[in-house]
Each structure stands twice: as structure tokens, then as C-alpha cells.
């Protein structure tokens, strides 16, 4: 599975504080990369509800609150945990190497 992944550099890991998120664009797709108290994660970049950029939202522990309608998602699993969000986010693997953060995308 991991062999099929293309690891793309997102940013220096220290660019992200704890409870922080950043948008990352690759080709025409937008991703959100987070740092929570438990580590680094990545999901699709736009909310499944109305398309707001998730990185503009508020990271509270392991939760991202969308800036559009305050829907909430559990970052590690992508699960929608508060309405109006009800469709889960796609999640992507992230790895940290030499202080740099990479997102794993399917080839």
C-alpha cells in the first residue's frame, strides 16, 4: 500500500504549531494538514458540507471546526462529529522526515 504512495513535501514541520492547520495545494486538489496534540494529520482541504477551506477553521484538540457553519470533524479519522457536517473527510497519511512534513498521495 505504502509503495503506491507518492510522498509530497508540504512544509517544515515547525511551521505548524500545536492545534494548527495549513492548506496545501497539489495539482488542482486542496488538502488540509494539521498538527494536533497527538501528532500530524492530513485530510481533504474543503469541508464536505459547503466547501469552506478547513485550514481557515479552528483546531481544538483532535477536532477541526469549519469556519463556514461550525461543523466539526475528528481529524485523525475524518469522521463528522457535529452538524451540519455529516459526510466524513477523506484522510491521507503524513510522515515527518528530517523536520519536514510529507503527505502521502496515491500515484
Amino acid at each position: 500500500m505504502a509503495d503506491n504512495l507518492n510522498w509530497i513535501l508540504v512544509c517544515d514541520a515547525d511551521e505548524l504549531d500545536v492545534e494548527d492547520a495549513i492548506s496545501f495545494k497539489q495539482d488542482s486538489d486542496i488538502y488540509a494538514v494539521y498538527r494536533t496534540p497527538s501528532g500530524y494529520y492530513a485530510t481533504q482541504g474543503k469541508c464536505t458540507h459547503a466547501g469552506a477551506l478547513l485550514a481557515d477553521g479552528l483546531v481544538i484538540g483532535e477536532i477541526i471546526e469549519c469556519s463556514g457553519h461550525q461543523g466539526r470533524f475528528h481529524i485523525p479519522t475524518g469522521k463528522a462529529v457535529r452538524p451540519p457536517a455529516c459526510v466524513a473527510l477523506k484522510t491521507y497519511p503524513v510522515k515527518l522526515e528530517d523536520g519536514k512534513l510529507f503527505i502521502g498521495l496515491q500515484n
Partner: protein
Amino acid sequence: MGENQGYEIDLSGWYKCDIDRKQLKRLMRRDNWHGLLWFGGYFALLAATGYLAYLAIGTLWVIPAFFLYGTIYAFAAPIMHETHHGTAFKSRWLNELVHWLTATMLLTEPEYTRWGHMNHHTYTVFTAKDIEIELPRPPGIMPVVLRLFGIVMVHPVKICKRAFGIIEDKAKEMVPESQLPKVIWFSRLLIFVYACIGGLCIWTGSILPLVYTVFARFYGSPIPKLFVFTQHVALAENVYDHRLSARSIHLNPVFRFFYWNMNYHIEHHIFPLVPFYALPALHEQIKDQLPRQYSGLWDAYKEMVPAMIRQYGDPAYIIKPILPEAQLQQQTGAI
């Protein structure tokens, strides 16, 4: 529509100001103490003016005293608004408690009103979608009067129907399905609260419980509404740029206290997760990217009123704020 749940607008398409990401995160941080201070101050003033009004009964002071009390009472609306966004308090239960309390004071059911307001943020002044457009274009006298006294914001028939589980299609369109039971139960609770107030009137043989609650929501409404009208009236419709469809005005600290800083209205629409107490700091960060801030209510109305009058002859007329980039172009051209 893509992956979005039935929305015709992709929120990422709205204009956004440039702001340092870490700075924005700092501004979005929530706490309880600002909300408690402002809400506590509000409630203390409400109680004090309510007591003064009671003392004034039987004198000529009764009219100004109740007008003052009612005006403060109707300023519950900006508090309810902040709790719609969940930004009044860090603590969720506190936020929801104040949300329910202020909505009940204003004779509205909190859950439907919240999602109606989310609709307003999604489709700000998009004429076919936004249910919170204050005035039609051109504005008639009656809509202005009805809005000024808060009459069109109260829907007793719909509340009664919702209490019986009959929810209109428009509400179903806006409220997430999982939240519809809340609409029903909060409608029942609203009816129960006001039945108790009615019962109190009968029991005490006095109309005062109604004067302090239901009537106050209406007779106290005009001054808060004068602030609300400045938010969007006579500005652009159907544009993806809040700088053209919303208006920010400068207010003194007393007015900002009662209005919960909603005079920073463009800032609020562009960054709705920034709590009310951080809006002045947000304004400082992004003001170079916004149209000029009006110097006060008078400055806003002296442009709005002639524009509304002009709309009778020319319904397409709108005020077009000068954006900083256009201003810069003009200056460069002049050089």
C-alpha cells in the same frame, strides 16, 4: 455542487483578506471571561433599568424608563447572534444556555434561527437565498416600520406548527435533519415559557410580566435595529465579496458593548470564527484591504437614506464602496 451537501455556493469562492495564518489563529482563540463580562454587564444593566422602570410606574417617567429598559432588552439580539456562531463562550454548554435564553427573550426558537443565520452567511445578500435580507430594494415604508419594531422576526404560527412537528419546507432546507427534533422541542419550550408568563399575568392580575418580556421585544426594537440596518442595506447583492455587500462602521465603546462589536461587520463576515472581542484587533490587521470604515451611524445613514430614496426611481441603484485596490489605481493614475 461537487461534494457539498446540496449547496449551490462553494464557500471557498468568497473573497478573503490576506492575514498571517498564525495571527488569525490567535484571534480565533476562545475564552469564557470576555463573554461572561459582557453578558454579565448586559444583564446587570437590564435588571437595573427594569427596576428603575418599575419605580417609575405611576409617574411620567414611566415612558422613557420602559423605553430604556426595552431598548436594552432588545439588545439581546447581538448576544444571540454571537452564540449562533458558538464564539460567545469557549464553554459549549454556556454558549448554548445563553443562546436559548436570548432567543427566548426575543420570541424566537434558537435552533431554526441559528441555521437561518448560517444560511445568511452562506448566501450573504444573495436575493434568491438569503432569508435575512433586511429590506427589499426599493424599501417600502411598511417593511421599514415592521422591521424597526421587530415584528417580522416573530412567527407565532410557525412556532406552534413546529411544536406539533409540522416543519415547513424552507426550514427543512436550512436545518440539518439531525437537528430537526431540537426545533420541535425548543418550539414547545418557547410556548411553555410564554404560557407561564401569560399565566403569571392572570395570577398577579397585572400586565407587567408581558410588558417586561413580549412587549419589550417590540417597543425596545427600534434603536438596536438602527444598528442592524447599517450591516447590508443599499449595498451590492449577489456578489462573492463581503466588502461590497456589508458595511463596517466606527462606534463608541458604549454602543460597541451593546452591539457586541457587530459594527465590524465586514470583518465578521469574512472571518466568522473570530469572536466578538477580537474583531477590533482583526480590523487593525486587515483594514488596508477593506473599504473605508464609516465614521458612525450618521455617516452611514447620510449615504443610506438618499440611496434608498433614489432606489424608488432606480431600483437597480446600489452604493458601491471603493475598494483599496481601486483607490490605489486611482491614485497611481493621478500621479
